[in-house]
């Protein structure tokens, strides 16, 4: 552990070479007199060495990594073709809508909804009358 006078992250910054120049002067002065921090620094140095050593990250690449490619491309291709089916369904729906389009141009078609509304209103008042008559 480093001493209490110094933030231990400064020692990491020193090794990381991301330290502020002023802080560098401060910490170098401090290291001359502080045994604890020197010990902490040497431990950190060892760790940085191990962490930065590429040999420590060498791994074996499994055979599956090479053979997997075709499988992945096929999986993506299948999904894309699925979206093609969706496109086809949408087209069919559109066709059906279009085939009913002529109804809009039938004489009297625009009034159908209004007439239905009026009819239902008349129906309601008619029923009321019948009920009150009883």
């Amino acid at each position, binding site marked *: 552990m480093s001493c209490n006078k110094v933030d231990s992250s400064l020692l*990491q910054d020193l090794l990381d070479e991301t330290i502020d120049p002023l802080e560098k002067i401060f910490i170098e002065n401090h290291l001359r007199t502080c045994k604890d921090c020197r010990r902490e620094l040497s431990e950190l140095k060892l760790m940085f060495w191990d962490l930065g050593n590429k040999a420590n990250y*060498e791994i074996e*690449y499994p055979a599956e*990594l090479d053979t*997997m490619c075709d499988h992945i*491309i096929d*999986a*993506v291709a299948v999904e894309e073709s699925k979206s093609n089916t969706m496109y086809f369904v949408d087209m069919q729906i559109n066709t059906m809508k279009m085939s009913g389009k002529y109804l809009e141009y039938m004489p009297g078609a625009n009034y159908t909804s209004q007439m239905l509304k009026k009819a239902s209103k008349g129906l309601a008042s008619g029923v009321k009358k019948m009920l009150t008559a009883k």
Partner: protein
Amino acid sequence: MEVSDLSILKEYKKNNRKGLELIYDRYKKYVYSIAYHYAGNKEDALDITQEVFISVFKAMGGFKEQYSLLPWIKKITINKCLNFLRAKKESISLNQTTESGDELQNIISSDEITESSIVCKDTKKALEEAISKLPDRERMAVLLRHMKQMKYEDIAQSMKLPTGTVKTLIYNGRKSIKQNLISQGIWEV
């Protein structure tokens, strides 16, 4: 490294499948190495690699030529890694306890061998173990900094975090790794 990104993208326009194969060949080791060190085992690393390339291939159609592929693939890899373990922890936490239970049993049953194996343990294994014990985000940040030598700003961008947060993650990660390595007795010999 034989083919440049630009020629890969040109190839992709001519022949989709060939282009995707070239992308895979160029970046598979990069993606797998991050996934392996992050997840700590071959199976999960392969799963993550597969997920990464599925996303990459799906989005290739919209990829613009003036960008390079590496930062984009890097981002996707980091994302998939972080989400992968999160999803896994939620779904099969029971499995994990039995796994570690098994390990514990082995250690208890052969304490003599364990002692010598601790003494003889090499730095690489010790470091792997120390890294594997870090919390997800700390582990990812430390790996990107030390394994892939990325700058703090680049890590921050790739992980979608403020630079200050990344620094804190790496500081804390290093601190735990150091403690762990000391407790494993790596430097005492």
